[in-house]
């Protein structure tokens, strides 16, 4: 089976014994839970599109390990063309879901671990790369969804791992056995972790020699003994618990997911360990993963932005304001901002380079510039969307009011009648369709989907300052000073 269908993916989740806690309770049938299911359907889209001939050129490719057709989300980039196609694929999925589809972290982790393990082995004669290739073949053959997990809780940010009052603030080795290691700690904000069959763990930041017990990378099944997950809340998430046909949910089909993944003394067999105490390679793995992931945002958020622009244009039309010049100009501005992000994603991919392991890495400076823009532009895009939508986006009554048969006023009119009368806009559009668009925009601008489009754009793949540090390191200022000196005749 090199490609899983959408149904096979969902069925595979049911077979797992993943331990999930939500709002203080253990959820046994989490696959069908209304707060979780939209995020599962979102990941399922990565399988569904891979079956559709209109999208296979982006969604599938050939494995460099086996020659078989695989889902691109399990691929090791073999060229800059692969990097470009990745960005295009992510844009496509953003367009189809208007959500975070969660699977890119795994792909980015595969590529970072692939090249870093090669270079660890080169220095130490270890066999991490061989182990990882075997693991990757297993992932590709079973078309697995893998949570690429990097972010530790980090405790006191002013202290390195070994000086933390609670050592578990960073994932670490607590026991070494002949056949493997036992690890303890947790990974925070893990996108799509519950919807993943596997986890691929990486260190969270650069490590010194004193921190070597924290310099670890490994893979593990999501339902392994000792692992459990605590679901993260999203703004307005309980709307998903209301009537499934209610328009108040905003996006009736898809959504994102983040959770805390706890490792309560979990055994990792040797064949799944890809770094253990080689602390000087933690930086390489982190930078490479972060670089890929900052490239990713130049695709996925652009796809979501496409939907936001479309919804804003619809809102204007349904309000009857589509011909106003300022509305047209705002839509142009939104498009300009969105396509600028795409330009950055494509640019850092086109300028990619071949690692020692043979796979392709993005241009680090351009990827960081890409992500830095992503920390800003979606905020301006949603500001403009809210401007176009109007205040009704956040003041309109509920779906139930629009359908209420309760009589109100002096005549026979119901609450539903009054709502439909006073919230009507363009006569060619039903009031309900107008409300649907406004609820969708509310969802993405400040509701549950704002987690994915706004705050994830800010902090996902590293907060803005992390990119500024990388931009500073990669900016080549000395060369630029030399350029100025040459032109104006300064010799020293």
């Amino acid at each position, binding site marked *: 089976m090199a490609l899983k269908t959408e149904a096979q993916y969902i069925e595979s989740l049911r077979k797992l014994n993943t331990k999930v806690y939500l709002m203080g309770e253990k959820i046994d049938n989490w696959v069908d839970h209304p707060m979780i299911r939209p995020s599962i359907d979102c990941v399922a889209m990565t399988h569904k599109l891979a079956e559709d*001939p*209109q*999208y*296979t*050129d*982006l*969604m599938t490719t050939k494995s460099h390990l086996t020659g078989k057709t695989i889902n691109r989300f399990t691929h090791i980039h073999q060229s800059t063309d692969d990097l470009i*196609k990745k960005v*295009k*694929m992510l*844009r*496509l999925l953003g*367009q189809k879901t208007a959500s975070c589809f969660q699977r890119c972290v795994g792909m980015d982790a595969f590529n970072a671990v692939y090249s870093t393990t090669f270079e660890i082995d080169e220095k130490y004669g270890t066999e991490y790369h061989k182990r990882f290739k075997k693991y990757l073949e297993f992932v590709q053959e079973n078309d697995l969804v893998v949570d690429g997990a990097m972010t530790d809780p980090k405790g006191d940010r002013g202290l390195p791992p070994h000086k933390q009052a609670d050592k578990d603030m960073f994932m670490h080795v607590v026991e070494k056995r002949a056949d493997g290691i036992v690890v303890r700690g947790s990974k925070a904000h893990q996108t799509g972790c519950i919807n993943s069959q596997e986890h691929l763990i990486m260190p969270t930041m650069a490590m010194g020699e004193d921190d070597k017990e924290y310099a670890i990378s490994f893979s593990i099944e999501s339902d392994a003994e000792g692992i459990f997950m605590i679901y993260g809340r999203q703004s307005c998430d309980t709307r998903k618990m209301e009537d499934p046909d209610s328009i108040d949910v905003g996006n009736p089909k898809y959504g994102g997911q983040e959770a805390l993944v706890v490792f309560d003394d979990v055994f990792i067999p040797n064949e799944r360990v890809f770094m253990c105490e080689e602390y000087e390679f933690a930086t390489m793995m982190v930078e490479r993963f972060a670089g890929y992931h900052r490239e990713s945002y130049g695709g996925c958020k652009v*796809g979501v932005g*496409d939907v936001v622009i479309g919804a804003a244009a619809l809102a204007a039309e349904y309000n009857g304001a589509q011909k106003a010049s300022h509305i047209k100009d705002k839509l142009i501005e939104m498009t300009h901002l969105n396509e600028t992000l795409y330009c950055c994603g494509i640019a850092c991919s086109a300028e990619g380079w071949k690692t020692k392991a043979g796979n392709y890495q993005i241009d680090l400076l351009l990827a960081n510039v890409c992500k830095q823009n992503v920390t800003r532009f979606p905020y301006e895009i949603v500001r403009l969307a809210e401007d176009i939508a109007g205040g009704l986006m956040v003041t309109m009554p509920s779906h139930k009011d629009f359908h209420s048969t309760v009589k109100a006023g002096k005549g026979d009119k119901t609450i539903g009648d009054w709502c439909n009368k006073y919230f009507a806009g363009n006569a060619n559009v039903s009031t309900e369709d107008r409300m649907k668009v406004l609820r969708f925009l509310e969802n993405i601008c400040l509701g549950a989907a704002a987690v994915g489009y706004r705050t994830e754009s800010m902090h996902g793949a590293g907060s803005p300052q992390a990119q500024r540090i990388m931009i500073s390191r990669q900016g080549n200022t000395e060369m630029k000073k030399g350029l100025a000196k040459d032109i104006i005749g300064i010799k020293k």
Partner: protein
Amino acid sequence: MICGVKFCGGCNPRYDRGEAFKKIKEHFTHRVDFVIAEEGKTYDFLLIIGGCTNCCASYKQYNWKTEVIKMWDEKHLPEVIEKIERIISN
């Protein structure tokens, strides 16, 4: 006559590629079999349906006898139909 068809991945198509393909298929009903291209098979010709000017779909992995026809705009439909008519008549 068999035509191998390949779509680009559709990241930002400027027109409905599926609808354009449907129109081409309808025009050549009973005259050309349009199938999604697969490696290892040989087609009389290839039709590449891109969504934008980049027309980035990969197709060199396929085998074809005569030519590769590319389109990336709805306006290309008459030209594509004309080219296929020419292939049939030859």
